[in-house]
């Protein structure tokens, strides 16, 4: 049976990761940077499940790791958004370029 090759999935995952990386490097707003991190972890998710399906279907390790990635992403976005809201309240800005107090 001919199916989509593993390299297609890995290339797509690399694309998703790099789009997210661009958002993290180039966007100014903390919320949009968090969106970029979610995109990067979406790429990781595709990678893990594709490797599980093509290389290691006999055990559930790939799926279990993918599940943990989803949970940890949720926790990370939760804390990240809470930090951004706290910074907004104390500094009145969500632009990360303007948060330079650690440099002083």
């Amino acid at each position, binding site marked *: *049976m*001919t199916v*989509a*090759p*593993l*390299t*297609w*999935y*890995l*290339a*797509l995952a*690399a*694309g*998703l*990761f*790099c*789009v997210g990386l*661009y958002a*993290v*490097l*180039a*966007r*100014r*707003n*903390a*919320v*949009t940077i968090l*969106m970029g991190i979610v*995109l990067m972890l*979406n790429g990781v*998710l*595709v990678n893990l*499940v594709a490797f*599980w*399906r*093509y290389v290691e*279907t006999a*055990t*559930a*390790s790939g*799926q*279990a790791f*993918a*599940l*943990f990635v*989803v*949970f*940890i992403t*949720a*926790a990370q976005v*939760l*804390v990240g*958004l*809470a*930090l951004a*809201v*706290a910074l*907004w*309240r104390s500094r009145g800005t*969500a632009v990360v370029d303007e948060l330079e107090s650690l440099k002083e």
Partner: protein
Amino acid sequence: MVLQQILFIIFGTIALGAAVAAVVLRGAFHSALALGGSCLGVAGLLVSLGAPIIAGVQTLVFIGGIAALIRFGPSSLREMTRPDQLGHNRWWWAGVVVAVALCGAIVWMLFSSSFDPAPDPAFIPSGSIAALGIALVSVEGFVLPLVVVVLLLGAALAGAARLVRRQ
């Protein structure tokens, strides 16, 4: 071209196109919508790979949780994403260079390697769901990491609630 290849092209285009839209669009509402679309595309890919449980959890957490929180969350979140707070920084072109170079390097390595395993033809998706369930609750499997992740989520929830509480 077989069904899985057609599904890959459809869902892959949705996932990648919506991801680019989420990053490029200026408005936070449109970015959040595009992020939800990208997550839906990824969920479709996961279903086509035979992992419907992961796709369901991913859809619930990312689309139901994050996208809804960004759009319909507390008023301060909406204020934080008003137009003067958005946009790209002055080093955006360096971000383009790094992202394109990294993606190009990975894709070049992938297509120049001879690593191309074939999937198991005897694979049954429902059997994989049962195997995942057993692995998550067995001592030899992932019960300890699962407990740690649950504690982490609880701690993150409590910490986030403490951080956003008004003084």
